[in-house]
């Protein structure tokens, strides 16, 4: 399988103090790591693509590590995560699906024993396309306070023969979470759901 060629990397960190309500004593932080890579399958239908997932593993780990670093270096502060991909116009949606395994397992590996599935989204789009990366709790998908999303995108990416890969981590619930549901303190941690 082809080597992963990275054109650019991008990191975004948001620190949210309030959203019209009381100022949080523990501001919510969200971080996104993006990598824009060449799509080795652009321009043609290629039947066998799955081997590229292995090639993407080192990049997944590098991006997951960079997110923990952007959030201060301690993986224990991470409470939510998500992932996504935007495939340039000469590629197909299925190419974005190559990111599920290397992106998701990289974050679980770096975070220790995260149990919940990594929420994800993907689409085909041109340069400047925005992607709302969904976010859920790392140990129990049903924790309602941690349902969130982070919008990412780059003005010049992805070009037609590129894929923009995204990983996202957050440090807590929505800043004024108050719509009930399963709380993080109630997680049983048996099935990754509750």
């Amino acid at each position, binding site marked *: 399988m082809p080597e992963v060629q990275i*054109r650019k990397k991008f990191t975004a960190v948001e620190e949210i103090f309030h959203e019209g309500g009381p100022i949080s004593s523990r*501001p919510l932080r969200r971080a996104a790591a993006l990598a824009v890579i060449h799509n080795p399958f652009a321009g043609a239908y290629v039947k066998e693509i799955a081997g590229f997932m292995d090639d993407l593993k080192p990049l997944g780990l590098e991006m997951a590590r960079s997110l923990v670093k952007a959030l201060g270096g301690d993986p224990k502060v991470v409470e939510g995560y998500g992932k996504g991909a935007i495939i340039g116009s000469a590629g197909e949606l299925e190419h974005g699906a190559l990111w599920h395994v290397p992106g998701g397992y990289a974050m679980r590996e770096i975070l220790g024993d995260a149990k919940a599935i990594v929420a994800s989204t993907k689409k085909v789009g041109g340069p400047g396309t925005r992607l709302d990366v969904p976010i859920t709790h790392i140990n129990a998908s049903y924790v309602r306070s941690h349902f969130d999303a982070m919008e990412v995108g780059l003005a010049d990416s992805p070009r037609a023969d590129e894929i923009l890969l995204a990983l996202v981590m957050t440090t807590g619930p929505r800043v004024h979470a108050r719509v009930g549901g399963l709380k993080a303190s109630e997680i049983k941690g048996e099935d990754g759901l509750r």
Partner: protein
Amino acid sequence: MADKMKASIRKIATFVEETRSEMGHAVNPPTRRAAAVAVIENPCAGKYVEDLSELMLIGEELGELLTQRAVAALGIPATAVESYGKAAAVGENGELEHAAAILHPKLGAPVRKVLGKGAALIPSSKKRGGLGVALDIPLGHKDAAFVRSHFDGMEVRINDAPRANEIMVAVAVTDSGRPLPRVGGLTKGEIKGEDGLR
């Protein structure tokens, strides 16, 4: 932190971009740039306010905070910064002049203090816009505005800002110029550093 400051800050975002290749041609070392953006309440929103000194003081405070954040995000010594820029976007209940009050009278001095130097004008842009508006922060060499390899810009945006009564304020710094500069002009090796221009 947010409640001890003159500015009422709702959120701060930082962005770091690293370019490793263009058209298959390696960029080595990669070019890196960072922006720090604060989303603040606009104390002058919704009415005409003649005296904008409150915004000027907020600009002074944000000049220091955002430059520190951007340099930290880049992970380099402040003295290694090569180019800089600033920008602001005012929400729909504010005036373009509010952006000017934040950016121009007092923001620059603390930026230069953090960087240790900065003889050149800090290039700037401003606009009024709604949520998710793109801010193109112009970039120029910090010691000599005519260094052509460092004429650049960085786009930033935050999907939920600025709200009508808010202002987005941005400072950007780099460790380099454009990825593969080759249109001539003054180079950074030729800077005389006397007037901030050349």
